[in-house]
């Protein structure tokens, strides 16, 4: 079975909390499917709603999904997916 590494930043109890999981995926799985299938204790349930996804920055191998195929981006074996809160300002 192909596997992906999932990194989650600040989506649990702690704003700076980092979790790392390895997830098995089916053939041609998408970022969306991986997100829906995540089982992480303490993760904010609100962020599962499509509207709240606007607040998420999602990266596949460090690349924002906005430059790929968005939530429909297909994943391959050994890809790394990162979900974190969007931020602005410098």
């Amino acid at each position, binding site marked *: 079975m192909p596997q992906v590494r999932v990194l989650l930043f600040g989506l649990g109890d702690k704003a*700076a909390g980092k979790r790392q999981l390895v997830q098995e995926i089916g053939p041609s799985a998408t970022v969306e499917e991986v997100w829906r299938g995540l089982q992480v204790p303490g993760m904010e349930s609100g962020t599962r709603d499509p509207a709240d996804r606007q607040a998420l920055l999602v990266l596949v191998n460090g690349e924002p999904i906005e430059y790929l195929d968005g939530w429909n981006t297909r994943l391959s074996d050994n890809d790394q997916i990162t979900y974190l809160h969007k931020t602005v300002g*410098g």
Partner: protein
Amino acid sequence: MIRKLSSQRVLNVDLSDGRVWSEELPLEDLVLYLGGRGLAAKILYERTRRGVDALGPQNLLIVSSGTLTGTNAPSSGRTSITTKSPVTRLYLKVSVGGHIGAELRYAGWDHLVIAGAASTPKYLWIHDGKVEIRDASGLSGKGTREGDSLLKEELADDEIQTAVIGPAGERRVMFSSILCSRYNSASRGGIAAVMGSKNLKAIAIRGRGSIAVEEGKPYYELASQMRHALAGDSGSDSLFNWGTAGSIPGLNEMGMLAARNFTATSIEGSEKLSGQYLVDEGYLIGRESCFACSTACHRYVRTLSDRWGRVQESGPELETVLALGSECGITDTDSVLVANEICNDLGMDTISAGHVISWAMECYERGLLDQTKTDGLELRFGNAEAQHELLRRIADRKGAFADLLAEGTRHASQEIGGESWKWAIQAKGLEQSAVDTRMAKSYALAFAVNPRGPDHLMTETFAEFGLSKEARDVIRKITGDEKYANPRLLEKRAEIVDWHEKVYAASEALGFCVFTSTAAFAVNPANMAQLMALGLGVPMDEDKLMLAGSRIVNIERCFNVREGATIKDDTLPWRMMNEKVPSGPNEGMITDRPVLDNLLGQYYALHGWDLKTGAPLLSTLSALGLVQVCGDVAVDG
């Protein structure tokens, strides 16, 4: 005293002979240049001469309130400070938050133009229509925190707003800063060295007057709508929750976190520099706001260990944790809070201070410096103790090495020699802020043409990343298609920079924080123009506002042309153009000379500037009505 919002009253102070006088600027100028940063640029151009000594009495230091500052327009309390920079020897504008702009207006003036130089240390006491030039010998050598407290004690008023320089400004450190309203740093380009050269230690302001808008009800209704829209913008939440340093995790994961003097793109332990970590671990004890802002992105923090000394003061911004943290190879949270406080108290720009030291650390690691040359400091990446000690020495210019670094990386690299100039991350003499311009092309172009040097605080083109719906909408508005919301593309970068330049200029002229218009996007040219029209009772719309933004950009450009700047100065640090991104998702990317030249060509053509010299064409200035102001430097065409 109640004054109209449309008033543009200038307080002139000549510190050489103690003269003080007021003047009222014409309303037509306010409409053409929007006030604030815009009118300050015009005043600087018209009232200084070519080649004016930045540290001489003929240079001006101009403090300008935003035109809508003093009202409840959201986040509209920003103040511009304008002068000629001693380090770039070019135009310098610094925008600062806090409350001094509103206080100046309530005290009876909208701009403060300081000329001359006092023979002994002075401070200005501006209060309710009165001005005094007072003895500041008791403040000399004091840090900015103590300076602020002593002024409040001497004037027996805790409500006064202050702008204070520290020892670094007094000693003319080329990256010294002015601390305003105690917590807000007016930094970049050695602005405080100009104040120090005038022997002006501080400005204290107290105003009990008020400002009246023309059409009160619709003005306040629109301001309130804008405030609500801002609260709903996807960017505002993160600014409140985690401050600007909330971007650390994302930058690290995207391989865009500047580390070890731009030789790495991420760093182990980066989370300890993040705004989220400050919240989780209890470093954060409060959030601070500038005047009329409910976003409250500023932090109030404390250290949790005694290792580097105790601090309980204003917290670090994103650029600060990058410059004093990752760029110096340091990820110890307490250390960065202490380094930030050293800089703020002694009055130094954290971006340049951090980058001067990260450059010196790279020289040390490469063997170009050793302890015999650093006055005994072991300047390895990660050595926080050496960094703190060096910061203190630089502010005091204590020892030959610190004295050299106090001149900035351009000068220091010329003295140290070898290949050290290649590792000096500067252009025009200003240390680049910690944005990797190798992968983000609008940023690269904006940094290269920035009149004060390469940083994100004249034109930030964050929208080009297209990471929110609002950002993609902005890119669609500018280019006609949101597909251009991708920082790696070369197409449409000139248009994106041009739009942001004008919006930045207009926002700052009116007093709006650019986080509201170019990071969050709820404040936009249309509603800014509408608010200005209602508040001042003048005709204003989006097109007129953008045209005024263009006037500001052109006057600033003309100032630099008059000082001898050419297209050669529109450049980036050597490393940014010659060493590819070494690792991470953007590995191998570069904005090299041919790419930059291509972008510059598009940019000059769009602006109506001469392709050979970069100077504005006469026809361009004529179309903007600027021939009388700065046509003397225009190129025929």
